[in-house]
């Protein structure tokens, strides 16, 4: 166990930052190019998760477990956010019979 965990970590910190920012920008692109509300929601989840991974990586890098506690809080927050967000999507679908976000442009003006 000890030898395994000591062997595992030899990845430069830059590569973690690069991986997480690539996945974060994929999430941003997904929010911008899709019109299905559920897929947009899933892109937001992707962004949240990439930030979680980066927090955990920095926590291991600094040897400080506080980062992992924060990831735990973010996960609790994401669970609450998903519950409320999906309820809103269901309500929108019931009122407009569509989950295309372009029907929701009434708040634009």
């Amino acid at each position, binding site marked *: 166990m000890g030898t395994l965990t000591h062997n595992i970590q030899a990845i430069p910190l830059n590569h973690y930052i690069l991986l997480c920012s690539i996945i974060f920008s994929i999430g941003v692109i997904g929010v911008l*190019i899709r019109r299905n509300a559920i897929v947009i929601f899933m892109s937001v989840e992707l962004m949240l998760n990439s930030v979680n991974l980066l927090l955990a990586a920095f926590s291991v890098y600094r040897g400080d477990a506080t980062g992992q506690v924060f990831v735990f809080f973010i*996960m609790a927050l994401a669970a609450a956010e998903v519950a409320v967000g*999906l309820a809103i999507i269901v309500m929108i679908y019931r009122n407009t019979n569509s989950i295309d976000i372009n029907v929701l442009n009434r708040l634009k003006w």
Partner: protein
Amino acid sequence: MPQLFLRGKGILQISTMSTFYFIAFLSIFFSILVITAKNPVHSILYLILTFFTFTIHYILMNAQFLAIVNFIVYMGAILVLFLYTLMLINLNKDSEPRKSNLVKIAGFVGGGCFLITVVAALKAFGASPVVVLNNPNLGLVKNLGKILFNEYLLPFEVSSILLLSAMVGAVLLATKDKKLPDGNLNA
């Protein structure tokens, strides 16, 4: 120190490093599939695979608590909730209308600008230090529980209130609006 570390462990080092790069490739590949899949159900299935690769990343960092929580909460609860909502909403009648190409290009440029900024900032850093796990039981449940219940007890309790209010809000939003006798909507 990192160079010594690298030289000391030979083949095992290389194999675990290539594991990281392989899993990182899979993460990026599946997350691209999430946003490009036409069918939302496929998109959710790819998202499950992406989160599974994230769980493997946590295991590689020996963050065992986070790996288990990611597995149970994200793959077990949140994505099942997504699938359930998608089944509830009948999407079979017509596929979503596509956005125009101009909007898509603008979206790619917007996301790419962020990525280019981060990559340029990383270039400015130069050579980066290596992520080394000095304390092997950093991410274990025992260690995290001690910190959570000693220093972060109040946020922990407040998050329970958050979950309760989210549950009440979700139930309130998702219930059907009842019509009052005078015709007004009872929200």
